[in-house]
């Protein structure tokens, strides 16, 4: 079916200022992505998966202006963690501010540099998982990303990485419009941790494609924010091999509009995929977690744990689906989405979905939204814990199940201290 004229026009306006680099294996992948995008058009409010989140700021021809953010005396995320830092300023790799990539003990290449070759390992990955993730739910902004990404890194891990790679984003221009595309391939039996942090740009579109081969382990921890005015859409596409492990945790603090999509496909038997998020919003805050987990093999386990703390009119959205394909027996799927509404002005919209075509599976889902437990608050105070501290303790307790998805204790502590800092700054 041909795209309606209005959608064609909107797409033309959005991509008018973008360039499609030609040549090499990457040029071909970009051209295919553009073809996908042209067939789909940009998302609109009437699209099923955009009913709760207005995509207009994400699809507008130019990035809405976003004031730069001063983090004050807060330490940068993952400050005390030994890691290899790769810095992107307004979506452009900043070699001078970065560590020597060789220190990580893994192959790291910049997208633009690797793309010119005729053949490359990333050929089997770049835009490939994104394309697979377009069915049954269209993700046009991911296709736009694959076509027009201006920068990014390709990481290949063959053994055990000596330290995590930390992608650090910096926002220095009020009108920056960044499109980054990263690929990570964790080869059979290898293990790798990827960290991401910082405000990236006024508007940020990101795709991360991750191939976790048989028996490989991948850990992903990111701290988004605390810039208030950003508009961001991010996607993680992952494919898991036999006996592999994928764990992704995202902390989102502030942000006028953030949509985090995770599309995970368990293709090898006995694979484990966990995706978790803790988000905190005060005032003008819209945060959307859209997750799609496909079980296509036997005895796989998936967990989705999403917790949101909302106040002063903040809005949280969760759209999570577990699809169990025919033959994916002994699947163990779990999904929980919860919001803690700190006042009566905030809102949580949840759409949990299960679609199961195998008969020997265990799948559960739950979604709740509620206020802080007044009885627990009184109990804590009666033991001498001051009101604000008691509230913070209960909020952290609410978030604990999501934070528990971070395996590394030092990183979990870092995330916890950032949450405490946020609660302290946003106490009544």
């Amino acid at each position, binding site marked *: 079916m041909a795209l309606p004229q209005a959608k064609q026009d909107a797409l033309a306006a959005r991509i008018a200022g973008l360039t499609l680099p030609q040549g090499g294996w990457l040029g071909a992948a970009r051209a295919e992505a553009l073809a996908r995008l042209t067939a789909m058009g940009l998302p609109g409010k009437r699209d099923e998966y955009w009913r709760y989140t207005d995509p207009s700021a994400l699809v507008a021809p130019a990035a809405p202006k976003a004031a730069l953010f001063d983090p004050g005396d807060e330490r940068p995320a993952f400050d005390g963690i030994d890691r290899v830092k790769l810095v992107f300023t307004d979506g452009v790799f900043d070699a001078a501010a970065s560590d020597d990539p060789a220190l990580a003990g893994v192959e790291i290449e910049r997208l633009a540099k690797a793309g010119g070759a005729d053949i490359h390992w990333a050929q089997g990955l770049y835009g490939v998982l994104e394309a697979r993730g377009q069915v049954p739910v269209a993700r046009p902004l991911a296709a736009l990303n694959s076509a027009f990404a201006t920068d990014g890194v390709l990481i290949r891990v063959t053994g055990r990485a000596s330290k995590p790679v930390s992608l650090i984003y910096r926002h220095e221009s009020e009108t920056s419009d960044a499109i980054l595309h990263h690929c990570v391939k964790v080869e059979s039996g290898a293990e790798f941790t990827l960290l991401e942090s910082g405000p990236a740009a006024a508007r940020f579109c990101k795709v991360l494609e991750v191939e976790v081969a048989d028996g490989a382990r991948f850990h992903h921890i990111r701290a988004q924010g605390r810039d208030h005015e950003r508009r961001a859409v991010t996607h993680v596409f992952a494919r898991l091999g036999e006996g592999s492990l994928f764990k992704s945790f995202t902390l989102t603090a502030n942000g006028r509009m953030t949509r985090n999509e995770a599309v995970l496909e368990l293709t090898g038997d006995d694979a484990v995929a966990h995706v978790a998020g803790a988000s905190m919003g005060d005032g003008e805050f819209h945060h959307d977690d859209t997750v799609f987990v496909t079980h296509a093999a036997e005895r796989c386990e998936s967990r989705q744990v999403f917790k949101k703390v909302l106040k002063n009119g903040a809005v949280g959205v969760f759209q999570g689906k577990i699809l169990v394909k025919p033959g994916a027996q002994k699947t163990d799927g779990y999904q929980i989405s919860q919001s803690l509404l700190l006042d009566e002005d905030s809102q949580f919209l949840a759409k949990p979905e299960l679609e199961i075509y195998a008969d020997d599976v265990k799948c559960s889902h739950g979604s709740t939204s509620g206020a802080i437990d007044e009885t*627990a608050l*009184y*109990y804590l*105070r009666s*033991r001498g*814990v001051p009101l604000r501290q008691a509230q913070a303790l209960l909020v952290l*307790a*609410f978030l604990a199940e999501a934070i528990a998805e971070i395996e590394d204790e030092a990183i979990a502590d870092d995330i916890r201290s950032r949450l405490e800092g946020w609660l302290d700054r946003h106490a009544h």
Partner: protein
Amino acid sequence: MLEINNLHVKLEEEDKVILRGVDLKIGPGEVHAIMGPNGSGKSTLSYVLSGRDGYEVTEGSATLEGAELLEMEPEERAAAGLFLAFQYPVEIPGVGNMTFLRTALNAQRKARGEDELSAGDFLKLVREKAKTLKIDADMLKRPVNVGFSGGEKKRNEILQMAVLEPRMCILDETDSGLDVDAMKLVADGVNALRDAGRSFLVITHYQRLLDHIKPDVVHIMAAGRIVKTGGPDLALEVENNGYADILAEVQ
């Protein structure tokens, strides 16, 4: 220690008067018991003293060592030395028992201008107190009261009391839901804390707890007032004859 004068309390949300002029004076080191039929206002008295929301004091006062209790926030009352062992201890998923205890103790110390206890000193303190209450390491690690049996919850209340070392302890039906052995364990925990500077107010329905925690004074509460005060024998009288005779007598 604790002095309550002519305390009148109603529910905040409805016109239901619960306490109608409670007078009570507990000296340092004394153990007082309050008994009384259901609905007489015993638990309300404990909630109002500890600062729970939902009650309105319409008349009267309550002071702890001369300080006006009713004007303080619940946490200030705790720091001032008041402790309520809950009839129904609250479950707090996600907050570890140790974290809870340490946060509470250090918050109180901070409020009193004392140094916070180091992690090592705190651990030592808790282990020592927990041992006498037969609270194992697992119970200390678990989230506050989550999955605890009735007896474990009550022992956990006494552990908090032992660690926080309040001067005025109110025990609200601490014996409810306990078997004989558990009651003895809890009573031993309480008795270990008795000293000349610490007072207790024990709210109970039954004489049997008072066999283990021997009171100096026993009060009978009915219809929101203390209607009779006596020695330990008064509790025996209730046990043998019920409240009817006493209530008829005072009316």
